[in-house]
């Protein structure tokens, strides 16, 4: 038997061995599905809040979360190489919502007020107080939107208590000292904007 015949016979034996490899594939796929499902159960809420803080719309935020997990599904082979899944997922959804925000037309402030009034907790407030609170928060968010992009992004991410400055730096792919300096500038600018708005009233 020549060498080529031995090689072909070996390949044929491997083809005959397909059931075993198929079982391995199915087992691996099941493991990847289980890992992805665990990620959804663990981080979907956090990703939604990150998405909502930028988009301020429930449906858009939910779409962004689904898109983020679809991207994870497409690249699930690399799940084992990720060190911190939480920061990795937040970075994915952060890029998605920034891209959507860039492409979307500017929403009028009245839409923000209506959306906020719908999602804000009542906490025993009357209807008038609830509406006034929604209007106040919408006004503050409008001032946040006037900040430069870099400072605005750092300020919004710093509002999430579960994100440290190191993790914010990892999400934005900047250094930790840049996070600190941008946050300092954002607070100064924000105070100036709110003081100016208050003096106009």
């Amino acid at each position, binding site marked *: 038997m020549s060498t080529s015949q031995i090689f072909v016979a070996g390949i044929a034996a491997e083809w005959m061995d397909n059931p075993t490899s198929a079982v391995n594939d199915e087992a691996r796929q099941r493991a990847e599905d289980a890992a992805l*499902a665990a990620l959804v159960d663990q981080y979907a809420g956090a990703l939604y809040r990150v998405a909502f*803080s930028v988009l301020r719309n429930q449906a858009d935020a939910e779409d962004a979360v689904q898109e983020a997990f679809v991207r994870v*599904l497409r690249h699930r082979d690399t799940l084992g190489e990720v060190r911190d899944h939480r920061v990795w997922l937040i970075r994915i959804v952060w890029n998605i919502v920034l891209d959507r925000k860039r492409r979307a037309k500017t929403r009028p402030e009245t839409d923000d007020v209506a959306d906020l009034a719908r999602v*804000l907790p009542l906490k025993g407030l009357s209807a008038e107080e609830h509406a006034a609170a929604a209007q106040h*928060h919408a006004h503050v968010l409008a001032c*946040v939107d006037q900040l430069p992009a870099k400072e605005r992004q750092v300020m919004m991410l710093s509002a999430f208590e579960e994100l440290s*400055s190191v993790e914010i730096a990892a999400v934005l792919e900047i250094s930790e000292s840049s996070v600190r300096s941008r946050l300092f500038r954002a607070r*100064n600018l924000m105070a100036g904007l709110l003081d100016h708005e208050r003096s106009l009233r």
Partner: protein
Amino acid sequence: MNSNPHDPMASETTSDSISASVFTTAEETLRLIANLPAPDGLEDRVHAALNAMPRRSRVLTWPRALRAESGWMRGAAAAAIVFVVAGGGWGVYTRVESTQMEQNQPAKVIVMPPRMPSTGGLSGAGAMRPPLTLPGPAAPQPVKISPAKAAKGPVASHKTNSHSGHSAATGAPVAEPAASR
């Protein structure tokens, strides 16, 4: 002022120009937005969306020996390198062998055409002569005069020239003397 334990600016002193109430108001709003609860059933909807995505399915799977993780590509690359190195060595060996075989044979002698001897004392500097078979241009041959005529001729002409009244420069025919009749 800031209840966030991870806040990077918690230990830093803020500018005096910043109003504490304004600052707190802004951060309260942002924190309120950041802590809004996710809608009910969000995870279920995400699961449903992921399950609706098409899966990677193969009708025929690659045999284990041909998969990338089995390392066949590394073995093939190593075999290719060995083949190239061995082939190059064999090529050099066979070329040296044939050269040695040629050196054992008697040397080929190239017969040069014989050089024509030079007529003069100087050499021809290796210049080849044209073959003698070709007819060259015919050079005018000098007329050979017999020695008897050569001795008689000049006297007669001298006599003729002396009796005639013509100058030699005119070249006119000279009349024969009467005595020669």
